[in-house]
């Protein structure tokens, strides 16, 4: 079903907001992760882990789910479709992958934040950091952004067939 222009713009604006917000939140998370690794100050390390947990659960996870949901709506509600173009299919796969890894990783972040809350200052150095997940996650989100901006050519077999069917119907 194709959305009305007004609704399409609203959903597109929401999708852009959630997606770019997701990237910004991961950058903030990464900064906290760097400070948890590099800082010698116990309060900073403890605060960084607590902030990483809060940012993860209350900002990154909701933004990821909202970006995924609005992405599905905008693609299915426009002529682009969900399975017609390779760039959309790959963007969808990468978004699902990033969201699943995020949801699997966040319980570990919560455990680390709990440990940071209760640890003595000298023990906080043993916590280490969390740079791999947000680093790779940010890279994946930037790839998705590039795909969405450049929209490289290439239709799937399904998209090729559907396009031909629609042309045949519109030009009998």
């Amino acid at each position, binding site marked *: 079903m194709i959305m009305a222009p007004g609704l399409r713009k609203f959903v597109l604006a929401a999708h852009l907001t959630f997606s770019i917000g997701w990237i910004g939140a991961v950058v903030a998370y990464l900064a906290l992760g760097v400070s948890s690794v590099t800082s010698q100050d116990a309060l900073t390390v403890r605060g960084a882990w607590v902030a990483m947990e809060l940012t993860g659960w209350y900002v990154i996870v909701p933004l990821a789910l909202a970006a995924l949901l609005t992405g599905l709506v905008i693609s299915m509600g426009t002529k682009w479709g969900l399975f017609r173009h*390779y760039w959309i299919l*790959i963007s969808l796969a990468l978004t699902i992958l990033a969201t699943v890894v995020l949801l*699997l*990783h966040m*319980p*570990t972040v919560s*455990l*680390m934040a*709990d*440990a*940071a809350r*209760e*640890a*003595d200052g000298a*023990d*906080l150095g*043993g*916590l*280490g*950091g*969390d740079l*791999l997940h947000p680093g790779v996650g940010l890279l994946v989100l930037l790839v998705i952004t590039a795909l969405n901006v450049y929209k*490289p*050519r*290439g239709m799937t*077999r399904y998209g*090729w*067939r559907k396009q*031909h069917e629609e042309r*045949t119907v519109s030009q009998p």
Partner: protein
Amino acid sequence: MADLPPYPGTPRWVKVFGIIAIGLVLLVVILLLTGGPGRHMGPGGGGGPTPSSSVTEHRL
């Protein structure tokens, strides 16, 4: 109804993307099998960022 024109094939950039993706998946699998970063079991689970034993003792 007109015949379906021949499918032009999968674009080169998709093939390159797929090869890179397969390489990265293999890398992650190797890291998981060798006990490197990437597990999601938390403290005591044997993978991922894990607090030191002195840290976890405070939680008991």
